[in-house]
């Protein structure tokens, strides 16, 4: 069962398309010379960046075979696989950072994926589009229909994003499952930091995406 591949075989298109916008923010959270696994790495832009600028042992996992082929063709160590089923194969503490960039909302079992991430790695870096953003709330309130934005641009019946959540929802899950939020921020689509660091409620209203650095308590 392929969670992110609707008919036609085009999985989670916007994940790869928007990789670059939060790339710098994520890379900023990663220490030099660390071991990194990027889940949903697309064509491997981030792992290449981490290898070249921070000398990381960075590897990728990607569900879309065309992207995998592109990444390996560029000399990047990327394996075709599925976040839902393949993280279980890695040993405990194999990595310093495991990154899940704009993929959490598209996996089958987000809670289990997070659990696996923090089993195989010291830190987890998670970014996701915030379903609590005011434009989405307005569309639902006034139009009475599922919101359509730049990030949420597929109709409800064909979207691969089966587990949308808000920044506040994510904080709640971290508390429930005992993850420490080492660092977090809200950003707009272009990847610029939004000034809501101390106010999760405002970030949840005005941040287009959430970015979290977690570790186990």
């Amino acid at each position, binding site marked *: 069962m392929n969670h992110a591949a609707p008919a036609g075989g085009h999985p989670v298109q916007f994940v790869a398309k928007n990789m670059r916008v939060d790339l710098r923010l994520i890379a900023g959270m990663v220490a030099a010379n660390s071991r990194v696994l990027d889940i949903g790495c697309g064509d491997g832009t981030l792992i290449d960046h981490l290898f070249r600028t921070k000398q990381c*042992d960075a*590897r990728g996992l990607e569900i879309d*075979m065309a992207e*995998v*082929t592109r990444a*390996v*063709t*560029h*000399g*990047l*160590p*990327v*394996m*075709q*696989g599925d976040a839902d089923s*393949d993280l279980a*194969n*890695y*040993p405990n503490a*194999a*990595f310093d950072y495991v990154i899940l960039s704009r993929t959490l909302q598209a996996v089958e079992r987000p809670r289990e994926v997070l659990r696996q991430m923090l089993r195989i790695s010291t830190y987890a870096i998670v970014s996701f589009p915030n379903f609590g953003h005011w434009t989405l709330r307005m569309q639902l309130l006034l139009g009475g229909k599922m919101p359509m934005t730049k990030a949420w641009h597929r109709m409800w019946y064909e979207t691969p994003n089966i587990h949308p959540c808000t920044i506040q929802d994510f904080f709640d899950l971290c508390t429930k499952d005992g993850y420490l939020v080492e660092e977090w921020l809200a950003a707009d689509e272009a990847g610029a930091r939004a000034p809501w660091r101390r106010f999760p409620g405002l970030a949840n209203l005005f941040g287009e995406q959430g970015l979290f650095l977690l570790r186990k308590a």
Partner: protein
Amino acid sequence: MPGIAWGISQAHIGSVMDQSQTLPEVAHQSVRFEDGLALDCGRHLANITVAYRSYGTLNAAASNAILVCHALTGDQYVAEIHPLTGKPGWWNTVVGPGKAVDTEKYFVICANVLGGCMGSTGPRSAHDERPNEPWGTEFPAVTIQDMVRAQKLLIDHLGISRLFAVVGGSMGGMQALAWAALYPDAVFAAVPVAAAAYHSAQNIAFHEIGRQAIAADPFFYAGRYWAEGVTPERGLAVARMTAHITYVSEAALTRKFGRRLQNATDLTLLGDRFEVESYLEYQGSSFVRRFDANSYLTITRAMDLFDLAADHGGALPSAFAGSKTRFLLVSFSSDWLFPTAQSRAIARALNHVAANASFVEIMSDKGHDAFLLDEPDFHRTLSGFLAGCAEHAGLS
């Protein structure tokens, strides 16, 4: 009707094969190791010869060597005209100047496997105890690991302490895996293509059909055909024909031949045949001119014996524990002999030990043979992977 058609086919094969009774003797570039080799079966070969070819130039640090491992019926003539068939090398599409395995950058070596019939020690070589006759079926059972140990002797002889990469398809992929498991520090990168960590029951079954066909040939003489001055050509040809079907896909056969007839509009005469029959017979008859039947028995058995997990307490990840080797696994979507699931199982085992592994399935309708054919996605992937490894190895 099939029975009659079969009779015709046999007659057809026979008429072609009577032209060559024994394999021509050709001189091969080789090294002889007087200390011989201890085999997995417990026997010790008193001395062994490893025939090989090389392309490109070994750099001063001896750090740019790529060992290419050939498949069941391949040989060391990877990228040049074959001395027996006169045809281009079997991996001409992959190995050469500017190609995926670039002989302008890398020193490429390919050795005929132990048990083979192109110059390396095998059933055609002189018997250890009776030097006046060949081993024949008395040649000891060899394993994929034995083949790798023989290659290691050659690599040491060439002054190479670490191979930049070991690359191989099918049985060559098994060797690449065995290299990484046996000599992890001597393999910077390993590329098993269309391979598996064990030979499946289905594959063993197909091999057994081939072996039975050879054994049933009246010219086999219990493996002593060399003493009679004949070769079990029909049996070997049938073995090849059966095997060849497993190398291609139904889609590829349909595209190439469909139900077309060979020089006929109707199957009215006994001699009228489908194109696919004629093609298979050609495959069979050309094969027997370059391959020894006892070698075929020896090497198919070596593949059957391959089970890397079994050698490591039943756990495949243990074969690669602590490995620093960078892996690229490649499978082809229509390969039913070494299906993608087999490569994925290896990929998962490598994940278990957090090895550096890439895994790609190439979309192709050409079946197992795709690894030998013009598959640009595969060639780009291999080339890119090697380039990335070269950067990490400090080669570029």
